[in-house]
């Protein structure tokens, strides 16, 4: 899985940061940053749920298969 984000649309809710802190963080402007663009398979479900819950559809996922 590969994680990308659209920094223009991020509203900074931080739901992803709390859900998967290993993968998502905030910069000084409260805009999402991806700390781990290729998260381990063990985190895949959490990352998918974070993408589903993102209020602005900012998180994009590319699956391996």
């Amino acid at each position, binding site marked *: 899985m590969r994680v990308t984000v659209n920094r*223009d*649309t991020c*509203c*900074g*809710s*931080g*739901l992803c*940061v*709390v859900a998967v802190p290993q993968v998502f963080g*905030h910069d000084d*402007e*409260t*805009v999402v940053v991806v700390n781990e663009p290729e998260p381990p398979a063990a985190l895949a479900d959490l990352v998918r749920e974070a993408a*589903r*819950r993102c*209020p*602005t*559809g900012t998180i994009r996922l590319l699956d391996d298969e």
Partner: protein
Amino acid sequence: MSTEEPIPYPFPRPGALDVPAELRALRDRPVIPVVLPSGDRAVLVTRYEDVRSVLTDPAVSRNLNRPDAARMTSNNKMFQDEKMDPDPPEHTRVRRLVMKAFTATMVENLRPKVQEIVDELVTKMENGPCPADVSEAVAFPLSIRVICDLLGVPTEDQDRFRGWTDRFLSTGKYSGPEIGAAMAEINAYMGQLIETRRAHPRDDLISALTQVHEDDDTRLSEYELHWWCRLLLLVGYETTASQIGYMVAKVLAHPDQLARLRADLSLVPLAVEEVLRWKLLNGSLSMLRYVTEDIEVGGVTVSKGTSIIPAVESANWDENVFSCPHEFDVARADNHHLTFSVGPHFCIGASLARSELQIVLETLLRRFPDLRLAVPVNELGRSEGTLIGGLLQVPVEW
């Protein structure tokens, strides 16, 4: 469609804890003409996916400062200010400065403090007269203390700002001059508070925003600073407080669901999401928007210049997304309701509200094994003529 007689919106509610009867069959059509309290016309978007797409569509603007845009009410311009651009990217730029104080991480760090306040208020309620009104005993004092602490507003001023909020969010309860006078008072009050924090900064949001403005006024102008500080205070507590009142009443009104919760308090976060899905606060009038380019909604063309309301309460009731939406299910899974909206205007206080709701519900159920409503459900009254429409009282006994 333009010849069709529009139906009045928001819809009437049969009882304080009921959703409008209109919700049941609303999604038969994706777009429905409505008439607002102002007498102006708009269209209502009814289906979940369409509501989501309207809320995230760049061709749908929140800026209603246009000669042909519908007004929510005839005498109150709530949230509209010709000097403030409510659309991205301008809105997003400023909103990010404010969002810092409300991120999910900040709210997680605040949880022990919220729990401490709830414990204190619940103990006071327990030691006071029974029955008690949860709204005045817990809901309002909690949400007011939390927002005042975050912003840096003295809680002892609440007798003043509660009156201003009531007028700011009036949809008919107050006259234009009454609303105008209250807005002048809040302007003066917040102006003075900002000056105080400018001279003596503290660890609060008003001080932090004032500092941002001082450092670089292209990031936050004087006008924007005042506007945001006022808005956060005016809308920062009554929504949460009213939602807490509805949550307690709704859970206590369903003995079977209450028993499930009591048997497993780990369901509390899901129960809170279910209460939010029911959207017992007023409908989606405040979601009013304006279409700037022709768009397609559920196969229907909505033309440029149309005023449009994405009906969140209808989306939350969409049978294609929620199984048995009319059932109150405290363990509902995959509950992706839209009560906090989506897109660039996603509720800034969503995480904070969730945390307050969860902590209040868990604490009340834990501390009072026999908590119950002290009046029949049909005697619960709602506040009329304001945007939020909370319960007047939530009398409970234990």
